[in-house]
């Protein structure tokens, strides 16, 4: 896969282009800015990992892309383009033709994402028929093929079974079939393995990776599991407090992190091949949305904080082989 860097504002024909995305939640005590100028691209067939602590805005970015922010959350600025066309301001009806058909979604907990009262076949067939001009019988055949493809044994016999008749791992396979059955160009997978048994996680990730490669589907993989990222993704974006701290090819981000936050993050992951006396940890906690520090949001926890870090928000700039939003790199013009 291409490890080539893509400039965030470049004219490169990316499949998905997110530029300066801002998401806000109006509350009684003022507007909370949950995403503050997030920008990245995903090329066709590329797997982009998105990592960060809880509340960093990973899932929110995914929700904004598929146009399903929970009210009162709203996109307050920036734009999202799919294949060059803006999709962040589409009317509901047009956005429905994007969801499922062009952008699929996989959610965290397969125990709750399937409707318990409808058979999995019913849910697949209605999704297929929503997006493709197929008869009931053709859609059923396609549903069976998809169930076979995601590894449901005896798919033809089990298509009329209900979600509760499947295990968690099997249900996540069904969810993947549902997300991919209309062959979208992009899949937003929001922590697809977090709710699963550790022994199942690797299988699901491998399945997702294989299907994406076979169908040329780009994937935005939201997770907080660096192991999954390292194994699966082409590039990775590290998020912190609603902004992207660092983005670049997985190998570079893992081996040579530039942003102090990424450095801390990598230092806190146990590795099997190295013996370290002690895992490092990042002191403090990520700030709440209502109390984000001025300048770089990471500055109170940053071991290398400088005066400028408390005054100016750093933009993404080249730092080694990655892009990092840190005043350590490049001239900070305040």
């Amino acid at each position: 896969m291409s490890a080539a860097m893509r400039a965030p504002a470049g004219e490169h024909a990316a499949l998905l282009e997110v530029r300066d995305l801002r998401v806000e939640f109006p509350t009684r005590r003022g507007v909370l800015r949950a995403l503050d100028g997030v920008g990245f691209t995903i090329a066709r067939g590329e797997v982009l990992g998105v990592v960060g602590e809880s509340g960093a805005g990973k899932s929110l970015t995914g929700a904004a892309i598929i146009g399903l922010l929970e009210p009162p959350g709203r996109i307050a600025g920036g734009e999202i383009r799919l294949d060059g066309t803006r999709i962040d301001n589409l009317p509901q009806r047009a956005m429905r033709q994007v969801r499922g058909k062009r952008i699929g979604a996989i959610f965290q907990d397969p125990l709750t994402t399937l409707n318990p009262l409808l058979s999995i076949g019913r849910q697949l067939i209605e999704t297929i028929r929503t997006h493709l001009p197929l008869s009931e019988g053709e859609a059923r055949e396609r549903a069976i093929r998809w169930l076979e493809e995601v590894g449901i044994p005896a798919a033809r016999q089990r298509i009329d079974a209900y979600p509760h008749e499947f295990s968690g791992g099997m249900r996540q396979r069904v969810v993947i079939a549902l997300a991919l059955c209309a062959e979208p160009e992009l899949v937003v997978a929001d922590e697809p393995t977090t709710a699963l048994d550790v022994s199942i996680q690797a299988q699901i990730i491998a399945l997702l990776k294989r299907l994406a490669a076979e169908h040329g589907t780009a994937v935005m993989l939201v997770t907080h599991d660096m192991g999954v990222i390292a194994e699966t993704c082409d590039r990775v974006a590290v998020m912190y407090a609603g902004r992207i701290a660092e983005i670049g090819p997985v190998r570079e981000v893992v081996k040579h992190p530039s942003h102090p936050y990424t450095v801390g993050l990598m230092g806190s992951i146990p590795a099997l091949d190295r013996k370290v006396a002690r895992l490092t940890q990042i002191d403090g906690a990520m700030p709440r949305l209502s109390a984000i520090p001025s300048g770089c949001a990471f500055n109170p926890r940053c071991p290398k904080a400088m005066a400028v870090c408390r005054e100016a928000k750093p933009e993404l700039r080249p730092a080694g082989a990655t892009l990092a939003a840190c005043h350590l790199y490049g001239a900070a013009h305040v």
Partner: protein
Amino acid sequence: MIAQLASRLLQAIPVLLVVGFLSFAIFTYVGDPVSIMLGQNATPAMRIAMRHALGLDQPFLVQYWRFMARAIHFNFGLSYRLALPVSQLLLQRLPATTELVMTSAVLALAVGLPLGVYTGIRPNGFVSRSIMAGSLVGVSLPTFLLGILLILFFSVLLGWLPSFGRGHVVDFAHWSTGFLTVSGLRSLILPSITLGLFQMTLIMRLVRTEMLEVLRSDYIKFARARGLAPRVIYFGHALRNTLVPVITIVGLQIGGLIGFSIVTETVFQWPGMGLLLVQSIQNADIPVMSAYLLLIAVVFVVINLIVDILYYVVDPRLRVGR
């Protein structure tokens, strides 16, 4: 499934025995039918003769046993007041109450369910808020007051609709129906609104709450993420998931409708079982009261059975194992 239904039916037997025992026990010690039937001027000899004729001089358990044994054959003895078989009285009154209750239930469902779905989908719209505010009236207005107000407006002031009775009824074998004549249907309007309004608002508020809950769930979010049409999401996915609690409440409420019909039937002089019960209570007509209570118990048992069957139909998770 059949085994479970059979066990449900078996469970119903002790329930009915207990209800029969209670109703009989309570009413045996309430009032004195003999003095009511014979009046103030009866001689002691007349009283004793009457007690003996009615079987009231027998021991309590014997009376209960006789009562239950006859009840199984739908024989509840003679009404103290009218000297007619109680079963015949009840059967005469059954169609009026059944038609009233069914019309009210259908009305409550047909209006309450769509309104509940609508207000659940658009919880913050002006129309929804107005409906919700209006529904408070339905929840809090007592049945008798609503009935009297409706009579005042539509019968007395406007003169559009009859204020009492069933209008013309047509007899089919033992069933007299008001559904087939214009005056029968006109007579049905006010009582069924009176009886059904509370249930309607209750169903509406329940469906709304359930819809709000279900629409927040992950599977609805996932259905949206698959680009399904709102109509499919609301009615195919969401409404279905609200049905289990709704079925429970509607089932209980149909029992409640029969109970509330006592008030409504009194207000509208509707010749149903409720009115019969009120007249019987006024006259300490024990056989009628006992039979009525048992009948209501049977109705509740049957409704619960239907509710259980509907659970199986709606929720596949209940179909396998227990």
